[in-house]
């Protein structure tokens, strides 16, 4: 038996939000692939649960009238990866989610959980950052929209407040149209592993010139991060060994990797420089640019 002390099965989004606000200790349970692991380990922080699995509306994946792609917070990794809209318009999301765990975990785990649990290594975080996800959140005060930029505030921490429930992610057309994007996960095993470093790039080319670059990393700082210095260094440049090196140097201002049992700070820095070049080259090639 899981050590669950209090359990509420939410009947509606409103009901979930009220229950979350009423009990400051309560946590949301969605796919359960993190929460139940923590409960299995006896973590008392997860003793009070609000179960949102009855909220079918949060599973929806669709395109709205403005051309934004909306992904429900309760859609599983597998459902997202296999969805036609995702494969056609934002394939880097499918590529990223395919690197998570194994099939059984992907059949249950959700992108809502992957982002909201604040994991520094979240495999969906690079895609979220380079496509600049909007997060549509319900709270007792009503609905509001937050950007993924600034959403993560520390390891396991986000801006979410008591009573907040993420309903869906929204990707506006100007954040995906015309971009090609790539994710590369460096891990010790080919599957069922946490990223040592995760790296994502989205580029928009004008001929051979990089018009826009969006570069993001996981495990390179206390939160998943966008790399503004590296992006600026690459803007309006062609892809050459020299311009990539300038970008890699600028990148050191953006990142703050640390030593852990998985890898040393020095090795992580090496990976960050190497992977940045790799994902940028790949994204440019995918758009038909030369490099």
């Amino acid at each position, binding site marked *: 038996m*899981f050590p*669950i002390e209090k359990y509420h099965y939410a009947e509606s989004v409103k009901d979930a939000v009220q229950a979350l606000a009423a009990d400051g200790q309560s946590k949301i349970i969605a796919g359960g692939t993190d929460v*139940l692991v923590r409960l299995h380990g006896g973590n008392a922080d997860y003793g009070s649960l609000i179960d949102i699995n009855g909220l079918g509306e949060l599973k929806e994946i669709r395109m709205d009238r403005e051309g934004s792609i909306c992904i429900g917070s309760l859609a599983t990794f597998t459902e997202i990866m296999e969805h036609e809209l995702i494969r056609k318009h934002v394939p880097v999301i499918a590529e990223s989610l395919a690197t998570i765990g*194994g*099939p059984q975990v992907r*059949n*249950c785990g959700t992108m809502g959980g992957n982002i909201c649990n604040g994991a520094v290594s979240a495999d969906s975080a690079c895609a979220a950052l380079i496509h600049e996800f909007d997060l549509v959140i319900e709270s007792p005060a009503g609905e509001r929209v937050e950007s993924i930029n600034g959403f993560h505030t520390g390891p396991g921490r986000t801006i979410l407040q008591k009573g907040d429930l993420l309903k869906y992610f929204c990707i506006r057309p100007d954040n995906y149209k015309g971009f090609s994007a790539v994710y590369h996960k460096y891990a010790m095993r*080919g599957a*069922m592993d946490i990223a040592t470093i995760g790296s994502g790039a989205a580029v928009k080319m004008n001929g051979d010139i990089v018009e826009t670059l969006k570069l993001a990393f996981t495990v390179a700082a206390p939160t998943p991060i966008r790399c503004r210095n590296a992006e600026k260094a690459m803007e309006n440049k062609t892809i050459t060994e020299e311009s990539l090196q300038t970008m890699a140097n600028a990148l050191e201002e953006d990142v703050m990797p640390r030593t852990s049992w998985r890898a040393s700070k020095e090795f992580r820095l090496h990976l960050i420089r190497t992977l940045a070049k790799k994902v940028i080259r790949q994204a440019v090639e995918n758009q038909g640019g030369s490099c």
Partner: protein
Amino acid sequence: MQSMDIKLTINTKKYEMTVDVRKSLMDLLRELGYTSVKHGCGVGECGACTVLVDDIAIDSCLYLATWANNTEIRTTEGECRDGKLSPVQDAYVEEGAVQCGFCTPGLIMTTTSFLEKNKGKELTREEIKRGHAGNLCRCTGYQTIINAVETASKNG
């Protein structure tokens, strides 16, 4: 503690019962006698507890029993019909893909859903490996298991 009334089908047999909300689907299935569902790691790494919920492979150790309400569960016991093994089970025997056997029921269910999902598709060994990444086997070294999936894919 709270409990919930649920209805579910396990290997075509219908059940109605009241379950404790703290119970995993793995514990529920084992209590009902479906002991092919193994308690391995308990944290979704080994896949020994894999069952199909509405034909989707999940780790039943990381799945609340109440979530199985209004679903159809398949375990390895049910794959055997009229005393005859399923093509997947048969292939595991034929290829010698079973040693100690603890991981086998979970692997059988993963292979079953993997092949149903990829029906008619030519599968590479790499694709088979990726499709079975959520199941650990400490005996075989996996080669015979991959052989079994290939054989079942041809015979299915």
